[in-house]
C-alpha cells in the first residue's frame, strides 16, 4: 500500500440508502477518479464534462434524481458557462439536490455568493494540493490514482458534502497515527453496509405491518397519500419515497443517540 494510502486510510461505513451523485468537470482524470471514489463510498455516480451535458442529463433523468451535484466552476475551452451560472439558472432542474461548486479560479462576486447561499449551494476553492497533486501524481504514477483520490478528494470534498447533506458519505478518515487500528476488508464492509440497510428496511416494514388499519391512507408525503401497506410496497421496492422513509428512520435512531449534544448546540447558536 502506498504511503499516501497508509496516511489516509479509508474505511467504508454504513451507507444507506444508496444515493446518486452527479459530478461535472472538464478534467477527465478528475472525473474518473471521483467516480471510482464515490462509487466505493456507496454512491451511484454520473458524470458530465460540461454544464450543457449536465443539463441534458438532468432533463432526461428528471429532478430529484440526484442527492448531490458537484460542479467545477470553470470549464475552459469546453464551455463558456460558469458552474455557478449553471446552478443559479437551472434551480428548477436541481430538485432537492445539495450542490457544491468547486473552483480552481477566483471566487465570484459577493452578490453571486449570496445567491448561491440562498440556493443552498456551497462554493469552495480547490486548493493547490487538490489541483497539483491530482495532475502530477495521476499522470506520473497512474497506479496510485485511487490512493490519491482517497486522500485528497476525501479531505476536500467528502467532508463538505457530509456537512451540507447532514448524512455521512460513507467514509471516515484516519491519519497515520491511527493506521494500526484494525479495518475490515472492503468486501466485508460493503456486506456490512448492505446488511444494516436491509435491517433498517425490515424494521420499518415490520413496524408498518403492525398498524391497526393497514389500508387506510394515514400518511402524506409530497403530493401523495399512503396507507401502511402502500408504504410497505414503497420501502420494499426501494422507491425514492420508500428510501426517504428508511432515511428518516435512520435519522430517528441517530437523533436518539445525540439528542443532548444537539440541544446544547442549538442553545449556543441562538444565544443573543
Amino acid at each position: 500500500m502506498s504511503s499516501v494510502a497508509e496516511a489516509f486510510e479509508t474505511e467504508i461505513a454504513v451507507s444507506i440508502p444508496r444515493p446518486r451523485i452527479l459530478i461535472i468537470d472538464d478534467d477527465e482524470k478528475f472525473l474518473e477518479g471521483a467516480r471510482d471514489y464515490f462509487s466505493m463510498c456507496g454512491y451511484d455516480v454520473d458524470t458530465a464534462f460540461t454544464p450543457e451535458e449536465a443539463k441534458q442529463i438532468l432533463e432526461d433523468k428528471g429532478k430529484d434524481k440526484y442527492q448531490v451535484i458537484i460542479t467545477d466552476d470553470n470549464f475552459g475551452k469546453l464551455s463558456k458557462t460558469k458552474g455557478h451560472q449553471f446552478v443559479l439558472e437551472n434551480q428548477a432542474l436541481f430538485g432537492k439536490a445539495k450542490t457544491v461548486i468547486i473552483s480552481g479560479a477566483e471566487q465570484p462576486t459577493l452578490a453571486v455568493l449570496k445567491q448561491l447561499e440562498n440556493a443552498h449551494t456551497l462554493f469552495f476553492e480547490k486548493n493547490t494540493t487538490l489541483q497539483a497533486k491530482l495532475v502530477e501524481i495521476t499522470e506520473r504514477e497512474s497506479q496510485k490514482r485511487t490512493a490519491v483520490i482517497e486522500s485528497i478528494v476525501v479531505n476536500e470534498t467528502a467532508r463538505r458534502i457530509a456537512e451540507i447533506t447532514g448524512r455521512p458519505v460513507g467514509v471516515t478518515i484516519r491519519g497515520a497515527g491511527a493506521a494500526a487500528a484494525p479495518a475490515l476488508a472492503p468486501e466485508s464492509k460493503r456486506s456490512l453496509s448492505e446488511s444494516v440497510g436491509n435491517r433498517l428496511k425490515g424494521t420499518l416494514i415490520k413496524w408498518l405491518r403492525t398498524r391497526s388499519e393497514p389500508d387506510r391512507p394515514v400518511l402524506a408525503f409530497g403530493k401523495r397519500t399512503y396507507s401502511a401497506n402502500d408504504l410497505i410496497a414503497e420501502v420494499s421496492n426501494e422507491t425514492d419515497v420508500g428510501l426517504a422513509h428508511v432515511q428518516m428512520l435512520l435519522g430517528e435512531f441517530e437523533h436518539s443517540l445525540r439528542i443532548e449534544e444537539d440541544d446544547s448546540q442549538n442553545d449556543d447558536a441562538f444565544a443573543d
Partner: protein
Amino acid sequence: MTHKTTTHSQTSPASKGNLIILLGAPSHDNLTEYTSKLLEDFPDLGAPTLLCRIETPVTYDTLLAQKSIDPSQTEVVLIYCGHGEPPSLQGPGALPGTPNCRDLQSVFYDERFLHLGPTFVLAFCCSAAIDLGYSIDRKTTGRTFVGFDEQIGWVMKTGDYADCYKRILHGSALAMLRATTIHSLEKSIREIYRAALSSFSSEKDGQYEWGLMMRAYLRKQLEALTFIRS
C-alpha cells in the same frame, strides 16, 4: 449546524397600518382536505382573519380581488396550508367533478404576484422555500417568509395529531408577527417544534400508534424549515 436563515433586514417590516390574515386552505384531495381543517377556528392573531377555502382553481391576485383587499393599502399575512411544487404554492387544478380533478393542481401563488405582497408568508407546503423563498429574498424588501425546502410528510390523524399541527401553525404565525429579528423568529419556531416532538416522544409510543412517524415527519419539517426576511 447550518441555519437556513437569510435576512436583509433584522427588524420587523414597516407597517402600512392595516393588517389582514388570509388563511389559504385549498381543499381538493386527501391531504388538503385534512390540512384545510387545521385552519378552521384559527386562534386570534390580533388582526382580522379570513379563512379562504379554495376548492376551485384561483390565483392570488384573483383571491385578493374577490375579498376586496387592496394590497397597496393593506398588509397581508398569508398562511397557506396545502401543496407546493417549485416555484409555486399550488391549489386545485380543476373544478370539482372534473375527471381526475383530485390529482390535478394549479398555481395559486408564484413570483408573478410578488408585487402584490404578502408581507408575511407562512407556507406549510412541500418545497416552497426552494424557488419561491429564493425569489422573495432576492426580489423583495420588507417581507418575511417561513417555509420548507424539501418535501414534507404528514400523519393525517385527528385528535392529538391534528392539535399538534394546529399549535405549530398558530404558534409559528404568532411568532412571525411578533418576532423583532429573523433569529428570534427562527428560535421561536424551532422551540415550537421541539415542544411538538416532546409531546410525541418515544415514551408515548404506546399512546400514539403513529408516534414514530409523527416524530420522523416533524423532525424532517424542522430540518427543512427556512426563514427569510428580505
